[in-house]
């Protein structure tokens, strides 16, 4: 008999229905990750006890840990399913929808809140238009580039938010990912022009001061983004901004 991969998956048929658990077995193959095993399972969705059920719904796309789609809780840890190799995981592998987000169906969650928050903190550079102005942006030193590049790899996957004790329903904390984007945009040579607006956005309710410094975010980020460093830097920026606000300077 071939070796089997054992899964326990938290199912939920819709946003309003109660979750339930099902166990599944998938034949082991070298190189399997959580998503590739789920792909095998969906072709013939039968529980471990042989009951025919509806296929498990979940999101995935790039399969290279760069699109952020397949975030889920794998053995209790928020991460990208495609990069979770079966051979590295303890079995039965427990899959749950990404914490903190409303469940759509099974392992599919609604992450619209992430993108709403990016609007709230104005995570973009103001440009006159997407046409050529016959020059680029001002120069950026290689050192500064390297620091910025860590933050620009954030794929809005939501793992840091799932791990953050402060983030969640009933709280409007913007979360570490949005804070890191403020750090990134404020560092850009022309992004700096709108620094004050972004800082004000994170000085408001649900902003920087809601961070409880648990440091979970930085431990789960699949891109190893130094989220807590960004939060520390922003702390200093916000203090300076408070002073500027007090003395009437922008």
């Amino acid at each position, binding site marked *: 008999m071939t070796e089997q991969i054992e899964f326990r998956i938290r199912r939920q048929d*819709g946003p309003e229905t109660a979750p339930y658990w099902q166990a599944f077995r998938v034949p082991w193959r070298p190189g399997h990750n959580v998503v590739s095993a789920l792909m095998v399972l969906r072709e013939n969705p039968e529980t471990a006890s042989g009951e025919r059920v509806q*296929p498990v719904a979940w999101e995935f796309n790039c399969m290279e840990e760069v699109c952020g789609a397949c975030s889920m809780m794998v053995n209790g840890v928020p991460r990208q399913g495609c990069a979770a190799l079966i051979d590295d995981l303890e079995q039965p592998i427990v899959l749950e929808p990404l914490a903190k987000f409303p469940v*759509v*169906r099974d392992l599919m969650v609604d992450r619209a809140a992430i993108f709403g928050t990016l609007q709230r903190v104005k995570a973009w550079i103001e*440009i006159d238009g997407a046409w050529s102005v016959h*020059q680029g942006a001002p120069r950026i030193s290689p050192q500064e*580039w390297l620091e910025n590049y860590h933050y*620009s790899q954030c794929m809005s996957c939501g793992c840091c938010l799932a791990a953050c004790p402060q983030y969640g329903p009933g709280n409007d904390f913007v979360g570490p990912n949005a804070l890191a984007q403020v750090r990134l945009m404020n560092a850009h040579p022309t992004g700096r022009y709108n620094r004050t607006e972004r800082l004000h956005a994170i000085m408001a309710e649900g902003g920087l001061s809601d961070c409880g410094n648990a440091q979970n975010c930085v431990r789960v980020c699949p891109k190893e983004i130094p989220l807590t460093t960004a939060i520390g830097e922003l702390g200093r920026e916000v203090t300076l901004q408070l002073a500027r606000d007090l003395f009437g300077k922008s």
Partner: protein
Amino acid sequence: MRRVIVIGGGLGGLWATLRIAEAGFRVALFSLFEVKRSHSVCAQGGINASLDTKGQRDSIWQHFVDTIKGGSYLANQPPVKSMCDEAPGLIQTFERMGVTFSRTPEGIMDLRLFGGVRNKRTVFAGASTGQQLLYGVDEQVRRLEAAGEVEKREWWEFLSIVRDDQGVCRGIVAMDLKRMEVKAFPADVVVLATGGLGQIYAPKTTNSTNSTGAAASRVFQQGALFANGEFFQFHPTAMLGDDKTRLMSEAARGEGGRIWVPKDPSDQRPPNDIPERERFYFLEEWYPTYGNTAARDVASRAIWKAVRDMGMGVGGEDKVYLDLTHLDPKFVELRLGAILRIYRKFHGSDPVTEPMEIFPAAHYAMGGLWVDYEKNEESGGLSCGSTRNHATTVPGLYACGECDYGYHGANRLGANSLLSASFSGRAAGEAVVSYLKGLEPGSDSVPLSRAFEGEVQRQQAINRSLMVSRGGENAYALHRELGELMTDRVGVVRDNRQLDQAFGELKALEERAERIDLGEASGWANQTLSYARQVRDMIQLAQVVARGAQERDECRGAHYKPEFELEIPQGKFPGDPEFEVYRQAWKENNRKWLKSTIARYTPDGPEVRFETVDTTILPPEQPRDYR
């Protein structure tokens, strides 16, 4: 108020959205998922623009020449010229958006060397250029979204266009992927930016699982023409996977990686236990001059030959070794860190101590929806803002990005894909703005409710029939069969007998796909329903690829039919009589085959005709020659 619909939120779709919204027209942006997850993020290497900052006197002209010759002259030259002309300004615009391009010590954008060219011309952002570019445009679109100028409809699947009595596209029908509700959306103009179709070769493709080509297939089946379908770039070195295959950059060979198989295919030993004399370094043996650094298509064909024709694949499987273990680990780590991380992460073993296992994979579709252009006679490039640029054969329907056919001819130059996606998105956006400005006032008031209702009902009927079908066919199994069939018979190496067979098998698959049994009837977030529909549309598009390959009796770029190969005489160069004989034969062949393949849908299968290519800027005098 004018209404614009853009479908697809990768680089092409976001650029189009940006330019249209900036011109004051409100855009509804449809995407299967959150746009930030689009396949553009997968491009790693970079984006070409002749910035000439490396003391090599690189020029826009040379970029143009490299692109045209790389594509074996099959691309119409005016759009390519404009793309190369505007590349530097486009890169600067990305830089203004805050894209984190890698820097030189003095703080300007760095350039790297890419395959198939002599000059450093590729701007890059670490090893994630596509991701960085997409995020730059995504942020700008979000800025417009916050200002109410863009409305995103994520989790909606495009099903079809709606045409009026004159055949003009007047909107779309789409399906909410949560509620599974089918709805009509009237529009004055529609832009399709739905990417590539690598999934027809699944799992042997580097494309994301959503790059099915279904959207392009749907408008093709509704009358839009599809061009150059047979031209598909296969990347020689993709790491193996049952889900998809992941790209291992050419740099692995460039830095000294060696490709080999055991001389004895039944050899069961782990690769490190196989002594040097029992290994077959076939690229080095067959191509002594270039060895392992042979061009992409040459390397793909060599691997194919060793594995499929000679049966030399490791363990009898589609597998060869890409070996870095003889190199200094520190050097490998320094130069190939990004690749090593991907391989370790997804394969679990370390390429520094164990050879990687790789095989060619479908990487990029040069073909796509046929789109028009208007030439500016003075500049030779595009007439900017012409309503003809990027217009499909359906009035009011535009296409840009990988789902059009415009910029790469028979093969794509490395680092030109991010460029064509961005440039074509912007050009399509500008064309759409002109189109909207030229529309008769009040033309949107024509009552079309019957056409929309009819189309909604037709789409609902398709869903209903799938929901109740008990035909016994499994959509996932059909897709796998499709991928195997395309890989085996319409892949790296082609011959007419195999292609004829392939076409018959595709027809059989099409029939079986009518009897798909979903195995679930849920009316909420039913992924199998959406998938089953896509599988049907993939089978249609696969027929276009196969038909084009059948008809084209020559070798050109990525399309390789050895029976018709014209080989450059070894050791002979321009001026040598043997080379000139070859050149004459090459020109003769061009007279017959230097033409775009244009496919039109019929229920019996695609019908193909050929169309002249505009080669007025760089006439085809010099064969592509990478010696």
